[in-house]
């Protein structure tokens, strides 16, 4: 997204006070706030905001100490959301995540089983090191993410709205972990990687968070209602035929056996992106359009979210992995070739 598109005129106008302008302002403010707290991770912050307002879940991958938990706490504080944290271990049980029925005695002496909600019932759930949980626990969590409800003892409990799961995983120390299967990875809208900050960012970080935790003192600039309103607004963003076709072409370009795929993808990709990825691309691009102050999607919005949407949804061939290729490099060439068509 270039600078000229960012500089959208938002001068007083008969329609300037519309919901789009308001949402645009809110999102800009939120990004600026998080940029001040999470220093040097501008792209990560933007993608995180995009995923939250698109109603998706995020898998964050990064080394320990890069501020993943800090980011989740800051986001929850800035949006005024109720948040919870689950530290995954191999002995974590599904009931520890979704909740359990306990035998409770009321004041009158009557004893009944009562459902005690687990941490998944928070609006923003930080699931730390999700790959350390057993597949059974992972499955329970991911079912809740998908259905946005928990069924226990025959009773369905709706999860709160907005609901967003930020799961983290460590790319190293994979011993004793349970990597997420592809079907469960597909439930995450974005997979974000946390890069190591630049030197300037590290220096700025010392000024911001050496003696205090800025997320603890962060004042919310919006509430859950605002989040829901903006989420609803993003669904009304216009999508032209050209952008629809471009989004479809992007997904097709990742397919190894499709005629529309380019040679790089067909050579290295074993499994391409799913139709769910197409929906995720468009939903995320709509949020990106609102963040840019537009009520219509552009190709650049699609391109901006293509990599985080697709990087965990493709599988490379074994030969390509042995050659040292990773999903990001392969997708970069795919996206570059796709972008040149438009």
């Amino acid at each position, binding site marked *: 997204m*270039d600078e*000229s*598109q960012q500089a*959208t*005129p938002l001068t007083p*106008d008969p*329609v*300037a006070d*519309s*919901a*789009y*302008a308001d949402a645009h302002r809110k999102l800009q403010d939120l990004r600026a706030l998080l940029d001040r707290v999470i220093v040097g991770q501008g792209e990560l912050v933007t993608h995180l905001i995009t995923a939250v307002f698109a109603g998706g879940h995020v898998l964050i991958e990064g080394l320990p100490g890069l501020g993943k938990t800090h980011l989740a706490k800051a986001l929850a504080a800035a949006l005024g959301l109720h948040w919870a944290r689950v530290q995954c271990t191999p002995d974590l049980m599904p009931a520890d995540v979704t909740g359990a029925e306990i035998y409770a005695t009321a004041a009158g002496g009557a004893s009944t089983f009562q459902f005690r909600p687990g941490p998944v019932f928070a609006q923003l759930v930080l699931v730390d090191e999700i790959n350390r949980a057993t597949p059974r626990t992972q499955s329970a969590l991911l079912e809740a993410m998908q259905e946005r409800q928990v069924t226990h003892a025959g009773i369905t409990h709706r999860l709160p709205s907005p609901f967003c799961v930020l799961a983290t995983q460590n790319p190293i120390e994979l011993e004793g972990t349970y990597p997420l299967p592809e079907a469960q990875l597909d439930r995450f809208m974005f997979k974000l990687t946390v890069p190591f900050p630049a030197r300037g960012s590290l220096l700025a970080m010392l000024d911001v968070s050496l003696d205090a935790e800025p997320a603890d003192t962060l004042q919310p600039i919006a509430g859950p209602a605002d989040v829901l309103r903006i989420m609803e607004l993003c669904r*009304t*963003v*216009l*999508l*032209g*035929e*050209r*952008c629809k076709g471009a989004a479809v072409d992007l997904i097709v370009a990742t397919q190894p056996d499709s005629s529309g795929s380019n040679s790089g993808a067909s050579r290295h990709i074993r499994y391409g992106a799913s139709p769910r990825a197409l929906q995720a691309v468009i939903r995320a691009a709509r949020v990106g359009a609102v963040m*840019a*102050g*537009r*009520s*219509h*999607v*552009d*190709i*650049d919005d699609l391109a901006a979210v293509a990599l985080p949407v697709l990087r965990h949804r493709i599988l490379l061939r074994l030969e390509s992995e042995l050659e040292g290729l990773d999903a990001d490099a392969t997708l970069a060439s795919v996206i570059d070739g796709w972008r040149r068509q*438009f």
Partner: protein
Amino acid sequence: MANSIMQSLQIAVRRRLLRRQFVAAARLALWGSAGLLLLAMVVHLAARPVRVDTVLVAIVTLWTSMMAWAGLRRPSDSACALWADRHLGGASAFSTLLEMREGKQVVPNTQALRWLEYWAAARVPHSLRLLGERQESARLSRPLLSVLVCTALASIVLTLPGTAPSARQELAAPSPSGVADRPAPDAEPPVSTVSALASALRSAESRRASERRDDSRASAARSGKSDVGTGSRVAQPGPAPPGERTTLGGVLPGTAVDTAPTAGAKQTSGAASGRDAGDSRDDRADAGVSRVPQSTIQAQRRESSERRPSLQRQADVDQLATFDDDLPMHATTERQDPDPAAATPPPATDATALTPTRAAYVQAWMKASRQRR
């Protein structure tokens, strides 16, 4: 208001796209013109003469069709909007707005459409400024240069007389009635033809004289030298122009035209001059084509074949008596015998060049023959 602003952008973009189309058509037409000129030159040189006006008509037709093609392809509204989106920072706003207005999509939210109109209208001045700043090179220099070069070449080539093989064949082919064998009354023979004709006539006269002189053996050598001179006059170095042979035949009615290949003519001339001269080989006859009328050569051959038996018989007898095949032995014998016998000279062919040893042998044979007489 927004509509008028959008219209202004659309008009400007359409004008720009039309101009691009015309420039592209002109570029294609320039390349096509250069190709046509090249083609005309090739055809003119290789196949048949090409008239300049034909080439001009083809070029004008090409330009007309290309300009018509460019003019008829009027950019549509969607194409203009798409181009503005791509190149003028429209961010898909113009094409999306056009789709919504044309009713291609069900507008989910009128507020979104109004915001889109507002956004696009606010974007138009920026897009118009970008359009004004956008300089696109016409890329006409190379095709223009090619056309200029081809035009210059074509102006030279197409004004040349037809040099195509077909044209030459038409000139060279004898007509069935034999009219073409005679020079046209209004056509003036070229200077080279006249000189070749004179040479041929002179060589014929001198050969007749040399035949008369050949009756006596004492004058054979002189006659041979004269023949050498004659041969040098007759044989012209280098290939003869194709048109001269016909003219020669036409000017000499009654004599057979020498239609033998060049090698055959060369061999005949070399044999005649070498036999008769006896002491030198006519190198010039090898290099050129003899234009001696065939009748003269045939008469010379007849006369030579009549002479050959007596000479051969005498030489064989002398060879048996005096010479051995071995040349050093022959030299010893010559020293011992002051009156060496004659021997058969080596056959004078073009393929055998006279080495100094053989030349000495021939001279010795001639000297002995003279002394014996």
